[in-house]
């Protein structure tokens, strides 16, 4: 292990403490950005369950995010049901969509899986995009009432923080279990898994269910933050952006996607102040990552630490032998 348990817990506690204090330190706009980072990071981490840990080409993860968001938004805006129902319904609707689309796609592998998912997801987008009467069409829905138990920007922040931390904890828990190890084995060598008795498709479908559930959670959080919802969330370009976040941060690590999300949103916020060409900047960043940092930022950092450790160890060994 690179870091002992004490260091891990210590840094985690420090981060949580810092997070809890943020509303009192940060100005309103930065708090908004931080909230957005948290929920987008959750979304990216949920995607990484499938791509980094599962090895599947989940090209249209945004659909499940969007379904979660729209479900919550529609219930809150168009019905009189209590808001906690909307909050619970979102992730389950997303997971249900995940199962349906997943069952279609799981019959195929790799590229076919991804392209079929884009096709099916785009149908959902097209319906939402055109159904002015129900989903608000290309305008989306606005002015969605926040649940009454959440109070102002601070309340929103703490709600999102709590939901994100709980979700991350659950995902980490799932990925550290023996199921998580099996999933990674499937990523590395699905044929070998089949030959040792593992039902590859079943395990992959289950991963999709978990991942889409948490994507739905992120969708609900988006609605809470923005009080609105748009078909852009369901558009495949956005799905690929989440992919980029995972890649940037490091898709073979757990914390990588969150870091990637933070970087992309930070870059986007900064860039939008100075220029209209954020998309081009994102493209250039992506090319730089592909060429120079294929393991992502966190992956690269961990690799360097590992290498420094190994050379330090061998140095001390040599010193020990000599001395």
């Amino acid at each position, binding site marked *: 292990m690179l870091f002992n348990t004490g260091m891990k817990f210590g840094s985690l506690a420090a981060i949580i403490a810092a997070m809890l204090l943020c509303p009192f330190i940060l100005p309103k706009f930065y708090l908004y950005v931080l909230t957005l980072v948290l929920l987008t990071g959750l979304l990216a981490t949920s995607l990484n369950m499938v791509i980094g840990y599962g090895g599947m080409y989940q090209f249209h993860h945004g659909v499940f995010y969007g379904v979660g968001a729209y479900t919550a938004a529609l219930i809150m805006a168009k019905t009189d049901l209590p808001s906690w129902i909307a909050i619970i319904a979102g992730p389950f609707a997303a997971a249900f969509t995940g199962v349906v689309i997943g069952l279609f796609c799981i019959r195929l592998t790799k590229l076919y899986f991804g392209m*079929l998912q884009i096709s099916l997801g785009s149908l959902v987008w097209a319906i939402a995009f055109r159904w002015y009467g129900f989903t608000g069409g290309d305008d989306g829905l606005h002015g969605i009432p926040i649940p009454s138990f959440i109070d102002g920007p601070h309340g929103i922040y703490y709600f999102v923080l709590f939901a994100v931390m709980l979700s991350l904890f659950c995902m980490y828990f799932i990925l550290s279990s023996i199921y998580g190890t099996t999933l990674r084995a499937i990523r590395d060598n699905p044929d070998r898994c089949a030959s040792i008795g593992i039902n590859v498709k079943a395990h992959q479908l289950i991963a999709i269910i978990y991942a889409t559930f948490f994507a739905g959670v992120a969708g609900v959080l988006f609605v809470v933050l923005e009080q609105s919802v748009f078909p852009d969330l369901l558009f495949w370009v956005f799905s690929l952006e989440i992919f980029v976040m995972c890649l940037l941060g490091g898709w073979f690590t757990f914390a990588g996607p969150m870091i990637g999300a933070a970087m992309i949103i930070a870059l986007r916020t900064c860039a939008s102040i100075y220029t209209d060409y954020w*998309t*081009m900047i994102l493209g250039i960043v992506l*090319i730089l990552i592909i060429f120079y940092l294929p393991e992502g930022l966190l992956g690269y950092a961990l690799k360097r630490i590992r290498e420094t450790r190994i050379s330090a160890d061998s140095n001390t060994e040599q010193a020990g032998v000599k001395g």
Partner: protein
Amino acid sequence: MNGNAAGCDEEDKTMENAALDLGTLGANCFVGLSRTMILFIVSSGLSFILGVMRVPNIAHGSLYMIGAFAAYSIAELFGGSTVGFWIALALSPVFVGVLSLIAERVMFRRLYQREHLELILFTFALMLIFGDLVKLVWGTDYKSILAPDMLRGSVIVFGSSFPVYNIFLIVVGPLVGVGLWLFTATTKMGKITRAAAVDRDMVDAIGINVDWVFCGAFVIGCILAGLGGALVAPTVSITLGMDHTIIMEAFLIVTIGGLGNIAGAFLGSLIFGFSQAFGVYLMPQFAIVFPYIAVVIILLIKPKGLLKSAS
């Protein structure tokens, strides 16, 4: 006698109405058919690249858009004259081809040894960059060009008028398809690309430089995208966002047609075009949903596409 005349009038009217309805549907289908040809030209390029390189070129739509904008600029250079249009039609795909060649030689080919996923994300990066590049060079206003004189106006057939330019497109589409087919079936280069699609390592093993095969396939595919853009230019407003719409449609067409199958791209385009025309006729608000539904139904039955894909 009055009764008879009235009866005849009513009969005439019903027949007229029926003709009109059929006429509208027919006109819709006809416009759909010409749009289908554009979709086919663009999708065939995408399918071609996919078949040889196994990479879905996400930047394909951007090259289509650049083709349209470039055609606009070239035509403007010649003052929007007829000659200008034909020169634009010839040069714009060349311009797109050169652009794709540069992207391929400078960056893309360094990635051929990498993970498949990284290649796909590279094309996504290209799409992002090209999209903003177009905004940088041409701005955000709508552009438009006119068809050349000989292709302007309409022809009256069976009581409905059909734009001449659309007829032109309906002729050009299959020509491009036949040309592409001839290329892969008869020329040496074409046969090599087909072989590389089936077994890349074997082509490498017999001494052919697979890198150059990939380069050729990519550039040819992109030229087709650019050609599609140049051809469509007189019929639509040339705007930003063209890339997003076309790439989504091309993806779907290629998926239902069979990845890498040109005839499949043709079939897919027909299905796409007709289901959209049908949708416009039936439920205009949800017209764009109809092709997606067709896609879902087809993929339910044949998840790898209707025709055989390059495995």
